[in-house]
């Protein structure tokens, strides 16, 4: 639709309208591309289709490789909810995700504002140093975290897991700072002339304007918290404290993977909303990412 519109307007504007018909070579290339893409899509989606069918297959056996489940039922879903465990996992993950996302958005907004609009010593290289520091992933200090928490008797508490996840993300600060830099300076100057103090400039002027990016960061943090296993698996040990990730890990891992059907149902129930949120948030992000690297 958009393509048609563009080519029409182009034809109207330029004195020599471009030919719309495809040459045989182009047509052949188009169809070869299509066939290759179809093949790749099938290969990419087959594993997901298998998970989908397994979630409706009550026999809980893999032996039947059918592309459509023979006797589709909701038995796996019922089993998942009957124990009540799935809801506990989702609740725990929601508690962690929401707490961490609220705290992270707040921390990120404060420091992005400072980096974007205020002058202070260390502004020039501060963010770069923080970004470099966070190139070292947390996995590397797992021994330090685990032994420190064990010494403080803080293993197996949801609270200590939240605490560990609270650290500010320099990458988020960088994203939000980039967004704030694009807000016209005049707005900030107008607020200054009107006698606004720094806090009012932050709350009244900058925060409402960068709300879209902040919402993106908020949701990406929640999705990240749902997909976190490393610390969750380390800290949370009793089933009542499991987050979604740890719970699902314990459903599937093991030699015979006997809960495959239930796992598939849990995977489907959690993956679909998470993927939808992620895809929506990412749509805003990718444009920003590529624009940032073009600049460099």
């Amino acid at each position: 639709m958009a393509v048609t519109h563009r080519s029409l307007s182009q034809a109207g504007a330029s004195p020599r309208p471009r030919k719309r018909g495809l040459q045989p070579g182009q047509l052949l290339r188009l169809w070869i591309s299509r066939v290759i893409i179809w093949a790749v899509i099938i290969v990419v989606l087959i594993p997901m289709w298998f998970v989908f069918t397994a979630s409706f297959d009550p026999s809980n056996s893999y032996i039947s490789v059918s592309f459509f489940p023979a006797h589709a039922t909701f038995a796996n879903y019922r089993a998942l909810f009957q124990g009540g465990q799935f809801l506990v996992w989702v609740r725990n993950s929601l508690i962690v995700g929401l707490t961490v996302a609220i705290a992270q958005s707040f921390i990120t907004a404060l420091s992005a504002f400072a980096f974007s609009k205020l002058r202070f010593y260390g502004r020039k290289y501060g963010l770069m140093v923080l970004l470099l520091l966070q190139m070292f992933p947390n996995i590397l200090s797992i021994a330090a975290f685990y032994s420190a928490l064990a010494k403080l008797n803080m293993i197996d508490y949801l609270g200590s897991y939240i605490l560990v996840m609270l650290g500010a993300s320099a990458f988020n600060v960088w994203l939000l700072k980039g967004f704030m830099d694009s807000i016209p300076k005049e707005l900030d100057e107008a607020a200054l002339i009107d006698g606004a103090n720094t806090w009012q400039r932050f709350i009244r002027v900058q925060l409402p304007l960068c709300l879209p990016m902040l919402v993106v960061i908020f949701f990406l943090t929640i999705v990240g918290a749902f997909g976190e296993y490393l610390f969750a698996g380390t800290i949370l040990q009793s089933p009542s404290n499991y987050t979604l990730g740890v719970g699902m890990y314990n459903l599937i891992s093991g030699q015979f993977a006997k809960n495959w059907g239930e796992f598939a149902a849990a995977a489907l129930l959690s993956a679909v909303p998470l993927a939808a949120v992620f895809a929506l948030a990412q749509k805003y992000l990718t444009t920003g990412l590529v624009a940032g690297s073009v600049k460099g």
Partner: protein
Amino acid sequence: MAAVAQTGTTPVARKRRRKVDWVAYGYLSPALVTICVLSIVPIFYTIYISFTNFNQMHFTSYQFVGLQNYKELLNPHDPLSNLFIPTLIWTIVYALCATGFSYLVGLALAVLLNNKHMREATVYRTLLIIPWAVPTLITMLAWQGLLNDQYGQINGLLHGVFGLPRIPWLTNATWGRVAIIIANVWAGFPYMMTVCLGALQSIPTDQYEAAEIDGATWTQVFRYVTMPSVWRISLPLLIPSFSFNFNNFNATYLLTGGGPPNSNNPFLGQTDILASAAYKMTLSFNRYDLGSAIAVLLFILVAFISWLQMRYTGAFQEVDS
């Protein structure tokens, strides 16, 4: 406007205008405090532990042992050395393969999708992005079930439909490694595709028109117009993605759990990468000392990769613009 103001003011006046907002440190403090407590302190604590014999045997009374742990890991004559070196080699091979193949697949698909005659390209793109959108935690665990030797549906498909012999995906070292690379390319190519597509679409159309007027063939256009732009935009993202894969604990631990077990090494399985090695040392064997030493060696490697990235791509130069 800004330029005029700047040339008009004397250095003294400019200095006065560049006054410091001390309140900025207040705004920064939550981020700085959390980063200090949760990133910097743990790093130093890890370095400290790696020089001690802090493990389950010496949980309350540990001593400083100097370079003992590093000697054990790096000395080729030490029984523990077959823990580190083979794991390191596999980590590098895995990270190179996962990043390289994801990039190639992503680039190829992006080139195919970037065809202005393909009206339905958005539909294809949406379908192909799904593996990226689902958290790796879920996809890797799902792959674990799908690749199960006996009951997995992948073997069911290959054996039942195509008549191939059952592949021991998770019980054979080589196939386990192949499985890890396949699953990670599956999960990683959509990101590369998105980046490359963005790069392709940012190429100004006049470059293509100029090439067309000069009578360039399709391959020449690709070689001299398309690739340089794609390369310029995607390289800064390629090295971070290598270092991401280098530490991608989820990718191996959730898929194979490091298995199958190693016959001459009780600690680590044959598909363990360094990140999962450090994790297992800490959690399964309570050898905080060795886990930390592995982590410190990994720190150094990651720092080296980051330095390479800074050196050759100039990423983050624009952070302060």
